């Protein structure tokens, strides 16, 4: 991974820049995913009642949609850097998510339980690269 792209310019610090609370919302989404996964995993190998898990899944998804909405409303933002970091982050977390999915399938998780766990895994896989990319890009100047 290389950091080619827009060069830095001397100027006022970007620390005080006001941006939407993408990190906080992303962290809240991750908490919802963690609670949902722990709830299902705590019932294994039996099937957990999925209502609670689906509720946390929906909450996590809603928070990530909110984040996407907030992000794409940003104008003066280093999108090149954001997508560069997000792409590589996604590759790394796809490998980790793939391993976890393999363990689910290997452990004979099936049916609606597998759908819920896979959906949570997909949200996790998308969320982390966004948080990393946002944290990097918020301190980059646009040309």
């Amino acid at each position, binding site marked *: 991974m290389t950091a080619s792209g827009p060069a830095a310019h001397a100027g006022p610090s*970007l*620390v005080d820049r006001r941006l939407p609370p993408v*990190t906080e919302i*992303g962290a809240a989404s*991750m908490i919802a995913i963690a609670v949902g996964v*722990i709830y299902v995993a705590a019932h294994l190998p039996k099937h957990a009642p999925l209502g609670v898990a689906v509720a946390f899944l929906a909450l996590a998804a809603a928070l990530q949609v909110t984040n996407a909405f907030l992000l794409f409303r940003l104008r003066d933002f280093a999108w090149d850097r954001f997508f560069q970091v997000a792409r590589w982050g996604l590759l790394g977390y796809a490998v980790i998510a793939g391993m976890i999915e393999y*363990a689910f399938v290997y452990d004979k998780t099936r049916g609606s339980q597998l759908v819920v766990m896979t959906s949570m895994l997909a949200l996790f896989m998308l969320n982390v690269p966004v948080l990393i990319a946002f944290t990097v890009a918020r301190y980059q100047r646009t040309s």
Partner: protein
Amino acid sequence: MATVAHAAIAGPDAAGARPKVTIVPVRGLPIVALVLVGVVVAIARDAKWGLMFCHVVGGGLWTGIDLFVGFVVGPIIGRMSIPARIEFSTKFMPKMLLIMPTVVTMTLAAGFQTARLSGFLDTSSPRHTWVVVSFGVVGVMAVIALAYLEPANVAVLFELRKPQPDGRVVEKLMKRFVYTAGITGVMQVATLVIMTRLAS
């Protein structure tokens, strides 16, 4: 302080003395791949010793590194001068970016399978409660590490690659790194209690 910090960073840069900052040490990727393949093979073969090896080695490294960084290295970094922090970070952070996700994945994947094979996942197991508590501790650490610590780690490396890094940005991100490393260090103490309860 911010002005001093900025000047301290801009100074060496002007002289062209700052080292090139690597984000991901590519030479380490084959080792990461080897470790992950080893974990997959241990899972596929239901190899009890292999899984236990991956869980204990990964968990030992994870706990040890978190405690050492949180309680020893973190406070030292906090007392370093800005140029010293930068020099340390440029060498330390890229390695952490490869080591931590690898040992965490190794520990959790192997640990879950070990718990399954040992019957600890079964709700009727007397140790089931401790397993669920360990899920909770891992959940807290995952949120802190993935939402705050790792993004700060990557962002500080990108900042340090700039011709003129902003001292205030570096300071803010390093502070975040030090605090979150401290919190995960405390969570690792809880992990030690849970794991020794499970093994006893």
